């Protein structure tokens, strides 16, 4: 039971006075995976992470990290995780090196090992030059790296990062993402985010959370595949508008179509196929037989954004925030 999955969560529920933050959550994360928890604000991402990091107890259900129960064996769990909370709180009055040293000692590393590890994570997170600076004087990007270094310092089996790129500028976001990608090569990482492109870029698997429930859980590619089945085909063709309309209306595979003028003589046709059909060869065949001119033929690839909107749309969204 312990070897395969590092996180096992079953039927996890957390109720605060008056509302349920997480209800009936069940999922598992295997060793070496990079999993993204995706959801709008208030979906229960932070609560889930706080339970996994033993900060809050669950109201019901079981959560295990590396085979240890987060409630009854909290000490064992805490030793094995590196957790960076939302907004990355740090002791702003300390120097970078002193802070990391303090955290390493707090996490039970011996004097000598803590020194070696602090050097290693500072190198890894690009903090070597700012080691003597006071954390409060650093830019947000550097502070984020300090938070990451803290999460890594005791070589945890699992790294939990809550919104690691929130409030950073694009350059810093890129740097932090690169760091996370590097980590992914030899750590298990659980990231939460409400930015879809981020999860798409860094994670191999996504759990979409909405109002405390998992709406979808799959690899990013699979989710895209599911969505691309219903993906639209766009074709720009130079032909009389009446001919085009007649042609699409005849085709049984086209569920819905829309023809609109594009620049020049071309008309832009947006075709929605019936499920499971790839319209592109059919469109090409039509163009060929009728002697039209085709200048563009594409199938829209759905980003996670669409998937996200797709799965969350069906639920009422009045309780966000």
């Amino acid at each position, binding site marked *: 039971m312990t070897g395969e999955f590092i996180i096992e969560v079953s039927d996890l529920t957390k109720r605060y006075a008056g509302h349920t933050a997480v209800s009936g959550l069940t999922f598992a994360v295997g060793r070496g995976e990079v999993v993204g928890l995706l959801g709008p604000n208030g979906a229960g991402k932070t609560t889930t992470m706080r339970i996994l990091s033993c*900060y809050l107890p669950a109201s019901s259900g079981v959560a295990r990290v590396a085979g240890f129960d987060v409630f009854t064996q909290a000490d064992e769990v805490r030793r094995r995780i590196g957790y960076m*909370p939302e907004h990355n709180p740090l*002791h702003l009055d300390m120097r970078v090196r002193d802070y990391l040293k*303090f955290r390493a000692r*707090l996490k039970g590393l011996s004097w000598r090992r803590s020194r070696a590890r602090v050097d290693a994570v500072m190198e890894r997170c690009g903090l070597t030059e700012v080691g003597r600076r006071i954390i409060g004087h650093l830019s947000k990007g550097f502070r984020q790296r300090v938070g990451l270094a803290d999460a890594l310092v005791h070589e945890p089996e699992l790294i939990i990062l809550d919104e690691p790129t929130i409030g950073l500028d694009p350059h810093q976001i890129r740097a932090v993402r690169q760091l996370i990608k590097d980590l992914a090569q030899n750590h298990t990482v659980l990231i939460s985010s409400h930015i879809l492109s981020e999860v798409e870029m860094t994670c191999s698997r996504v759990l979409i959370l909405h109002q405390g429930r998992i709406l979808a859980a799959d690899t990013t590619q699979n989710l895209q595949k599911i969505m691309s089945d219903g993906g639209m085909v766009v074709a720009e063709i130079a032909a009389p508008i009446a001919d085009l309309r007649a042609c699409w209306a005849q085709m049984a595979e086209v569920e819905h179509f829309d023809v609109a003028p594009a620049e020049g003589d071309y008309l832009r046709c947006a075709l929605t196929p019936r499920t499971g059909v790839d319209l592109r060869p059919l469109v090409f065949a039509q163009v060929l037989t009728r002697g039209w001119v085709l200048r563009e033929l594409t199938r829209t690839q759905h980003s996670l954004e669409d998937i996200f909107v797709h799965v969350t749309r069906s639920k009422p969204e009045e309780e966000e925030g």
Partner: protein
Amino acid sequence: MQAYLTLVRRELGACFVSLTGYVVIASVLLLLGFSFTDLLEKLSATPNHVPLTEIFYSTLYFWLILLLTAPVITMRSFAFEKFSGTYETLMTAPVSDLQVVLAKFSGALLFYALTWLPLTGCILVLRYYTNEPTVFDWRSLTSAYLGLLLIGALYMSMGCFASALTRSQILAAMNSFVLGLTLFLLSLRSLVPAPPVDWVAQVFNYLCLSDHMEDFVRGVVDTRHLVFYVTLTAFFLFLTLKAVESRRWK
């Protein structure tokens, strides 16, 4: 143990990197200076045979220092960490709640003890200029320090408790000041009207802090007073621990 020591060191360090620590030390020095001149005047006016520490203690300054410094030293212990969010990183590190509570308390107590060190200086100055060996009686001085430490421990534990209840440092300081002031006022019998019920009067009598302090400054270490301070301190630390654990009850 390692986590505890690391935390104590951090707590002490935090007092010295922020301005608060130096402000506390400076104010204590000022009040000590006042009480020192007061003491000199008393000594030069009438020949005295009571131990020096007792005269020192009998001035109002001692209580002023205790009542004012305790809230300031302890207010940041939990409240500031909760406010800044570092409480979450602290509580997800492999440390137990008890370790955290004890470390915060010890850090505050150590800092409090440091602020009292200049008192030794005052007494050394006195000894140097009077050439009177009895002035510097190390036994009465040690027991006075022990008393200071014990009453300080009680006030620090109350401060930690107040701090563990809230996210706001100001609220924490006010709560601990009110707690400390109440305990102090209860021991001023002239201010509190004599309770009509006998057992209440007895409880008030027992809580009288100055009674418990007097023996210490005279150089007498009495176990009754030791027990009084240690149990009350332990009680407030227990409450602090429960306040820290309470996040799991919600």
